[in-house]
Structure formats: structure tokens, C-alpha cells
């Protein structure tokens, strides 16, 4: 699956990194890093991450 984060919206709250730590992480500088093409097995968690993003910056594709 494809994951895109709109970095103009992202505020580095890190809720996605709590929901799906295999895909999203907050680096030592406090900024978001993520895997753009995670395995389909992680879909449930990635969807949860998109759902909980306070600024709704995460877009999911097939």
C-alpha cells in the first residue's frame, strides 16, 4: 500500500507513530519519518494512524 503525509499539514504530534510504529516514527530532531510503501499486512494499523492524525495529514492509496 501507499502512504503519503502532507508535510505542509504535519505538526509532528506523533500520534501516527503510536498507532503504527512500524511505519511512522518521530526522529531525534522531533520530526516525522515514514515508510511510503509499507506491507499490506500493516494496513489495519496504517488506517488507524490516518484516522487518529489530529490534523488529518495522512493519505492512503492502494
Amino acid at each position: 500500500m501507499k502512504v503519503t503525509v502532507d508535510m505542509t499539514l504535519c505538526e509532528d504530534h506523533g500520534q501516527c507513530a503510536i498507532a503504527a510504529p512500524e511505519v511512522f516514527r518521530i526522529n531525534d530532531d522531533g520530526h516525522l519519518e515514514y515508510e511510503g510503501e509499507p506491507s499490506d499486512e500493516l494496513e489495519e494499523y496504517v488506517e488507524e494512524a490516518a484516522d487518529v492524525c489530529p490534523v488529518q495529514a495522512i493519505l492512503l492509496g492502494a
Partner: protein
Amino acid sequence: MQAPGSTTIPALDVNAPDFSITSPEVHAAREESWYATTPYGIAVLRYEQVSRLLKHPKLRQGSVSWPAHHGVTEGPFAEWFASWILNKEGDEHHRLRRLMNPAFSPKLIGGLVPRFQALATELIDNFEQPGQCEFVSEFAEPYAARVIAIMLGIPEEEWPIIARESVTIGLALGVTIREDLPEIEAALKNLYAYCDDLIADRRANPREDFVTALVNAAHGDDARLSDTELRDAMVLLIFGGFDTTRNQLGLAMQTFAQNPDQWALLAEQPELGRAAVEEVMRVNPTVRWVTREVLEDFEYEGVELKAGTTLHLYTESAGTDPRVFEGGFDIAAERKPHYGFGGGAHHCLGHFVARSDMSEALPLLARKMRDLQLLPGSEWLPDSGNTGPMRLPIAFTPGN
């Protein structure tokens, strides 16, 4: 604590009886320096630094020691307070958050919008006098409490229980926590019994609702929420969702009464409801400060922050920082995000609910209560910590 260069660091006496966190004094301090000293530690005043420190990995959520600072170290309240997801960090926090998040999903909340609208309409239509109301008791309080009843799937007419017990538990956030403790713990016991019944009922009779979602919460290898965790979380959400929403609605009326053209615009364009909530929370947030505590010594912008130091991040000061925001109150303007819901790992769990219920209520209020005028007789919480009106008499021209 010394900043580089010759700038003097302003000091704010936040415990003075007449201190106001939104005063010209605080705004002037913000122009001198990004922070001020206070009797608690430091106050962070500018948007950029509030944004950064809100999510800083060397800071933790800062209210965990509150009861202990006031001599409350054991017993039901201390135990409940320690159980708050807000007061957990690291893996334990993340597990609770993962399990609780789906119940607060925007998808689940979207389905409640028609009920929020019907509730707001009913309350406004039942004001005792035409063209006049005491906004807190006639709208903000029943609205906030009945939204929680709707979320929990309990009969809406039981809302006074939610309101009464939450107000009592709220005494724990005041400096008289120790003397109020027996009353606080009695209220806590009542809400525990209430939530235990609800949990047992949804285990036996699952529904498509919020409590069932929490009862069934599962995520990967995380252990499910225990009955105690469920109960503690539900009481926290009742308590945390009630007075914040009530206060924020009252503050919204205050702001709009000062900006009649914006109120008229909202009546004409109800689709601006969502933006109206954001704009109100930027300039007049109920959570006036967000608390953080330094975990380990570190230097930030030339300032040595020592472990254990309390930082208060001032939300209104950040939200009106002229470095980032043009002056004025404009619900149609594009703005950067405010921090009225906090931020980082502890970003308010209930924000989708709060945003949704307030963005339905405000346009209906704007349509049905035209030409707002605040009347004498209002009563206010102190302008620090969590603020808002306790009484807010308003005159208006009835709309349809």
C-alpha cells in the same frame, strides 16, 4: 536561568489574585522574550517555542505530581489520578492510547452529528425567557453533559449526574484539593459505580457504540483494557469532556459578542462552524496553559532547563503571537493551527468530539441568537489554568 545577550527576562506573578494570562502585561512580556519566569518555573509565550516544546522528547506531561504537591499521596483519588492516560508516559501510555483511539475515531463521531444538532436546537428553543438566557446553565452545561451522555449511550435525562459529579471532581484541580478530598472521593465513587454498570451492560449486550468499542478494544499484541482501566478511562472522559466543552462554549459567546460582524457571518454561513471553533480556540482557549515537566537537564535556545522544572505553555499568548498571526478575529481567515488541544503524544484524545459538537452548536446559536449582548452578572473562573464563565447572562434578538 539566563538568556544570552543583555535582554532581561520578564517575571510573571501568576498567583496574584488579579493576574490575567491574557493581559497586556503577558503580551508585553512576549515581546521582550520568548519566556518569562513564574513561581512555578517558566512560562513559554511565543508560538514557535510553544509548538516545539509541546512535543519535545525531553519533556513529559507536567501535572502528574499535582496531588502529591498538595499532600494527597494515597487513596482513591490519588490512584485514579495516577491512572490517567494523561499522566502515563512511554510504552504504557502508547498502549492505552492505541486501545482508546478507535473509540474516538472521526468516523464513529460523524454519525452523531444529527443528534448534536437536535440537542442544540432543543436547548435554545427551551430558553425560559425570549431574547434572554443565562448561557451556562441553559445551554453550555446541559449541552456538554448531554453530548457525553450521547457518547456513552446513557439516557440523556441523566445528564445532571454527569454535570454534578464532574464539577465536584474538578475541585481536585484547585489549591484546596486536600480539604475537598472527602467530597471529591464520594463523587468519584458515584461515577465508578455508574461506569461499572455501563461496562457490564455492554459486555452482556454489545452495541454499535462508543462504550462497546472501548470494551472490545484490541490492537496487535497489546493486552486488552482491564475492567479497572476501562472504568478509570471512562470517568476521565466524563470529567475531561464536560467542563472543557462547557467553558469553551461560554468563551466562544464572549468572543463573538465582541465581534458582532463575525457572529452575523456565522449565522449566514453555517459551514464556517468548524473554522469558527478553531478561531475561537486560537484567541480564547479554555485551556490557558499546557503543562510540561523537564525529564533531564538540557539546553534550549540558550536556556538551561533543569530536570523537574515546570513549563507552562501559554496557548492564548502563542495563538495571538504577532510573529505568526495577523491581528483580529476572522473566522474566514486561513490560520496556522492553535494549541488549545495541547499537542504531541498527549494531544487531546477527545478533540474530534469537541470539534464536532461545538461546530454544530455555534452556527445554530448564531442563527437563533442574533445581536448578542453580554449582560451584567457574569461570573468567571480565574484567568489561568482552565478558564471560562460560571454564569453568563446574554440578551439577544431571537432568530429562526
